[in-house]
C-alpha cells in the first residue's frame, strides 16, 4: 500500500527533517506514527498524501512509484487518500454538509447518490443538527469532526490523520477511533500521527516511532480493544 525506501526530505536549503526513512504499510494495516514534536511526523504524512515530493528516496503508493508517475496520474491517487490535517482546512464558505460532500463531488458523484451517506455520517459524529452551519460558527472540536467526516466519507483506501482526537473530548475521541477501526475493518489502511500514548497502547495496531527524522522503532501495539 505505502512503501518508503531511504526517503529523505528537506525544505529548501534547510536541514533534513527526514533521513533515510524506510517502512512498509501493508494493505489493511492500522498504524500509529509517534514521536516528539519536530520529529518529522507531519512531514512524513505530507509525503504520503502527495502534498510534497521527497528530496530523495523512493515512495511507492498503491503500487505506483511516485518518482516515475505522470503528473496527470497524481489527482486519482490523491482521491484514494482521506486526510485529517491542520493544513487541510474546511472551506469557510461551504456548510458542514457541503464540506463533507466535497470529496464525493470531486469523484463525480451525484448528490442523490451520496445525500443519505453524508447525513448519516454527520449524525454519527454528533453534528446531525449542524449540517447547514458554516465552519466559522462551529467550535474547534466540531470543525475537527467535520474534517474527519470529510476524510472518511468516500471510504478511502488510505486514511492519514494528524492528531485527530486532539480537539475533542475523550468520549468523542474514543468514538472517532472506533470509526477509524471500523473503516480499517472494511479494508482502509489507517495511519494516525499522535502524541497520545494511551490511545496507542489501547488500540490494536502497529507503531512507527520517529526520532529526529529517523525511524527508531516499529512494533506491534497491545490489543486490549479496537
Amino acid at each position, binding site marked *: 500500500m505505502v512503501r518508503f525506501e531511504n526517503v529523505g526530505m528537506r525544505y529548501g536549503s534547510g536541514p533534513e527533517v527526514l533521513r533515510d526513512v524506510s517502512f512498509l504499510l501493508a494493505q489493511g494495516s492500522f498504524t500509529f506514527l509517534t514521536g516528539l514534536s519536530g520529529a518529522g511526523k507531519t512531514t512524513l504524512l505530507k509525503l504520503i498524501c502527495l502534498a510534497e515530493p521527497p528530496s530523495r528516496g523512493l515512495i511507492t503508493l498503491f503500487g505506483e512509484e511516485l518518482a516515475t508517475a505522470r503528473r496527470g496520474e497524481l489527482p*486519482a491517487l490523491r*482521491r484514494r487518500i482521506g486526510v485529517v490535517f491542520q493544513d487541510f482546512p474546511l472551506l469557510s464558505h461551504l456548510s458542514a454538509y457541503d464540506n463533507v460532500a466535497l470529496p464525493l463531488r*470531486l469523484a463525480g458523484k451525484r448528490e442523490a447518490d451520496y445525500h443519505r451517506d453524508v447525513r448519516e455520517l454527520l449524525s454519527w459524529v454528533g453534528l446531525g443538527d449542524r449540517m447547514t452551519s458554516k465552519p466559522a460558527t462551529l467550535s474547534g472540536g466540531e470543525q475537527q469532526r467535520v474534517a474527519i467526516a470529510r476524510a472518511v466519507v468516500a471510504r478511502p483506501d488510505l486514511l492519514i490523520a494528524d492528531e485527530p482526537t486532539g480537539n475533542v473530548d475523550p468520549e468523542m475521541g474514543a468514538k472517532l477511533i472506533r470509526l477509524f477501526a471500523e473503516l480499517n475493518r472494511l479494508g482502509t489502511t489507517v495511519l494516525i500521527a499522535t502524541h497520545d500514548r494511551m490511545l496507542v497502547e489501547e488500540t490494536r495496531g502497529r507503531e512507527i516511532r520517529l526520532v529526529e527524522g529517523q525511524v527508531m522503532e516499529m512494533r506491534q501495539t497491545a490489543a486490549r480493544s479496537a
Partner: protein
Amino acid sequence: MSDTGKKTGMIAARTIMPRDKGAAPLDFVIAVMALLAALALGSSMIASRAAEGWQSGLSGRVTVQVLPPETGDVQAGLDAEVRSALSVLHATPGVAQVRVLSDGEIAALVEPWIGKSGVVAGIPLPRLIDATLAPGEAMDTAALQARLEAAAPHAVVDDHRRWMSRLQGLADTVRYAAYGILLLIAGATAAVVMLSTRAGLDAHHDMVALLHQMGARAGFIARNIEWHYFSSALLASLAGTVAAALLFTGIGSLAIVGVDAVPFLPPLSLTLSELAWLAAVPAVIAGIAWTTARLSVLSVVRAIY
C-alpha cells in the same frame, strides 16, 4: 436544486468558488471600463459613418456657379447665361440631373453669414446649378469649364474636390482618433480585468491548493473559478454597455424632441445594427476574465506538487 439540497444548504458545483463580498468595487470598475469602451466603440462607428456620409453627399455632384455680369442688364444677362449653362450641362455625357437652385435656397445658403436682414434683397446673387452625375460617372471638370466659358462666360464649375479632400481629412482624423481611444480603453479594460482576476485568485490561493490536494483535477478547479470570474465580469460589463447604449439612445431622442444637433456634425445616436455591435464589449471583457482566470489557475496548480 433538489429538495434535499434545499434542506441542507447543498449548492451547485459551479459555486464551490465563493462569491466575494469585497468584489463589488471590482465589478464597478469593470462596469465603468465597459461603459467607456462601449462609448469609444460607438463614437468610432459614428465618426466612421460621418466620414462616409460626407464623402457620399458630395461625390457624384458638380455645382456650376453663374456670376452676375458687371455691365448691362444684370438680371437678363444672368438668365441668359443660366440657360446657356443648362444647355451645356444637358449635352454633357454622364450628367443625370440638373437643377437650378431657387432664390429662396440661395438666400438660405448665405443666411448663416449675413443673416435675414434683407440687406441682400437688392444685390444680385450668383445663380447656382446643381448637376448630379449618373452612378459611376466621372466628370472632366476642365473640359466642362472650357465648354461653359464659351457658352456662359461668367459660369464657374466647382466639383467640391478641394472641400471634399479637407472634409475627408477631418473625417479621417476623427475616425483614427476614435480608433486610437477605443484601442487605449480596450487595453486598459483588459489590464483591469486581468489584474482584478489575478488579485481575486491570490485571495483564493489556499482554496485552490486545498482542492488540488483533495485530488481535484486542474480542469475541475479552473472550471469552477473561471465560471465565477466569467459570470461576474459578464454581468458588470453588460451593465456598463447597457448604460452606454442608453446614453446613445438618449442623445438620439434629443433630436426627436427638437434639440438639434450641431450643424455639419452627424447625429450622435447609433442605429440598431451599430447598437448590436456594442454587444462585443461584454463578450470580449468576459472572455478576457475567463481566459485570465483559467491560465492563472492552471499556473497556480502547476506550481503545486
